[in-house]
């Protein structure tokens, strides 16, 4: 049995999810922010931060979400762990729709969903020692006595590659990479089944990024974790994800396994993202690229039809008027994309 299969099985058992069922299912998630203006705070518009996003996350896998800044990937992540309340749509976790739960049930279920934040400098309370920061979740929920919590903290620090002497330190005495390890450790203190990793390595030096990514991978196999990995860096996403969701302006453009996505992207937007990523092999650098121009349109006034048509080099009349649905394409299966004229198909 391979490592990934083992992870899947472990994760499925821990979460109590039946075979083939997703651990987390995001269904038609929509999050609109009202824009208020004028002296009476009338609603003058809506920012469609997340607009009808759907995807499933299966136990033990890592689902990557990529996209430019402002595409709604972080908002999606925060909506999953309920830091933001969705305008509509469902987040089904371990078979239960989080929207249907009362405050108390939500509080309990939410403990199985934890988040690692992007900025390791603002995600740790500067006034508390590392040992207290990590013991706090256990003590707040009365899951352990002070003594047991201390032992668990030592264990967890060891697990994320920090020695026990860090317990007495304050966050400002740690480097970015060390802080992010503490952030990961804190998210794991309550034994969650799913971690939302919101750009966990974007704020770190490249050399540290690899270490943290490897740590995340090891933890996943050891503990049977499921990840939603949000990033704008394709390198990190490719390295850690099993499947990838490509988002643009609050909508899903393409969903595919990592191998499929990198081998043959179907959506022109995905292609531009891949082309923007520098090729490590110098011999490949000469090849033709699709380069998009201009900026991401305003999410308060999204373009008609396909939201990408304003920047798409292949846009035609149909793209301006009709919004493409997320479909499985000609070959069906797990590779889905939202484009009228996908790449690799004779037009």
């Amino acid at each position, binding site marked *: 049995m391979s490592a990934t299969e083992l992870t899947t099985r472990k994760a499925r058992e821990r979460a109590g999810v039946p075979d083939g069922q997703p651990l987390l299912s995001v269904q038609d998630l929509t999050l609109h922010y009202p824009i208020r203006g004028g002296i009476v705070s009338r609603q003058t518009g809506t920012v469609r931060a997340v607009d009808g996003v759907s995807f499933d996350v299966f136990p033990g896998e890592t689902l990557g979400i990529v996209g430019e800044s402002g595409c709604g990937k972080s908002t999606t992540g925060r909506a999953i762990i309920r830091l933001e309340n969705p305008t509509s749509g469902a987040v089904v976790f371990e078979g239960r729709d989080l929207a249907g739960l009362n405050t108390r049930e939500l509080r309990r279920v*939410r403990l199985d969903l934890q988040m690692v934040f992007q900025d390791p400098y603002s995600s740790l309370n500067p006034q508390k020692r590392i040992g207290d920061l990590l013991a706090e979740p256990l003590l707040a929920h009365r899951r352990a006595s002070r003594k047991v919590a201390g032992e668990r903290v030592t264990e967890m620090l060891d697990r994320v590659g920090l020695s026990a002497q860090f317990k007495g330190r*304050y966050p400002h005495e740690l480097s970015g990479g060390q802080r992010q390890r503490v952030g990961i450790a804190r998210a794991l203190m309550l034994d969650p089944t799913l971690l939302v990793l919101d750009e966990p390595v974007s704020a770190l030096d490249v050399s540290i990024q690899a270490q943290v990514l490897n740590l995340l991978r090891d933890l996943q196999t050891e503990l049977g974790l499921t990840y939603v990995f949000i990033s704008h860096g394709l390198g990190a996403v490719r390295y850690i994800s099993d499947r990838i969701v490509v988002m643009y302006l609050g909508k899903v453009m393409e969903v595919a396994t990592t191998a499929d996505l990198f081998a043959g992207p179907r959506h022109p937007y995905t292609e531009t993202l891949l082309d923007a990523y520098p090729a490590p092999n110098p011999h490949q650098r000469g090849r033709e690229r699709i380069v998009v121009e201009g900026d991401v349109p305003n999410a308060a006034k999204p373009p008609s039809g396909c939201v990408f048509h304003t920047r798409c080099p292949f846009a035609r009349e149909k793209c301006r008027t009709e919004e493409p649905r997320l479909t499985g394409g000609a070959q069906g299966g797990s590779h889905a994309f939202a484009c009228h004229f996908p790449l690799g198909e004779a037009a």
Partner: protein
Amino acid sequence: MSAATTRTAAAARSAAARAVAASLGREESYLRSVVRRFFKHRLAGIGLVVFVAMILVAVLAPLIAPHDPNQIFDEFQAAPSSAHLLGTDPVGRDVLSRLVFGTRVSITVSVGAVSVYVVIGVCLGLAAGYYGKVVDAVLMRVADVFMSFPYFMVILILVAVIGPSLLNITLAIGLLGWPVISRLVRGSVLSIKNQDYVKAGVSLGYSTPKILFQHILPNALSPIIVNATFGIANAIILESGLSFLGLGVRPPAASWGNMLSDAQSITVMTSQPWLWLPPGIAIFVTVLAINFVGDGLRDALESRETKSHR
């Protein structure tokens, strides 16, 4: 030139000391750096000494005062002498003893009133900043209403209505002083609640009071401490003013303010300075000292030196 060299040398030495500390793997603790920066302010250090001395005088008043403050001696309006170091007042009471006991009133009223309004201000400010929306709008409009009253007048009327006493002036000042603190706290909360560590607290399922008091408040403390310090100085002036107008501590109990009001006549002003100079100087020195402490605290606590984490 020599001064400049000494200064550079000193700077180099402290930089070196810090570098050594860093290389040893232990940075200077936050508290220690605050203390160091506080005492860099010479006036703040002197102010603190004076303030602590005043508190000691207040606590140990019966031991320090040479006489009972209400004891009436045969010689009244007597000039300072060895029997009465600061002379006696028109009734024949020892001025020094009254001054010492007056310290008690000033310190109790000011510290008490500030404690009352800091507690109220912190709670309301936390609620307004954290919950936002309607709660925020209502609380801040109420604060606006409170702030738009002429402060001293309202206290005057309040005390006149509920009757002058130590407890009543403490409450009057305390119940009216919260808006400034609550605005301050609200402002800090607005920026702190968007920090990821607060969001992490929410997703870790911490209760709202825990997030408010253990995660947000400790990070919003420095402006509160600074403001409360200045508030103490202000309350001392308010209390003196009220007592001067006869709405403070009731005679025969001694307070700096009512000692001044006993010395209003021109004859006293011109020929008996021992009646009004000591309480005047006491108020002036105490308020100045506390303001210096406040200045020092502000520089020490709100400096970006260790707060910048990058």
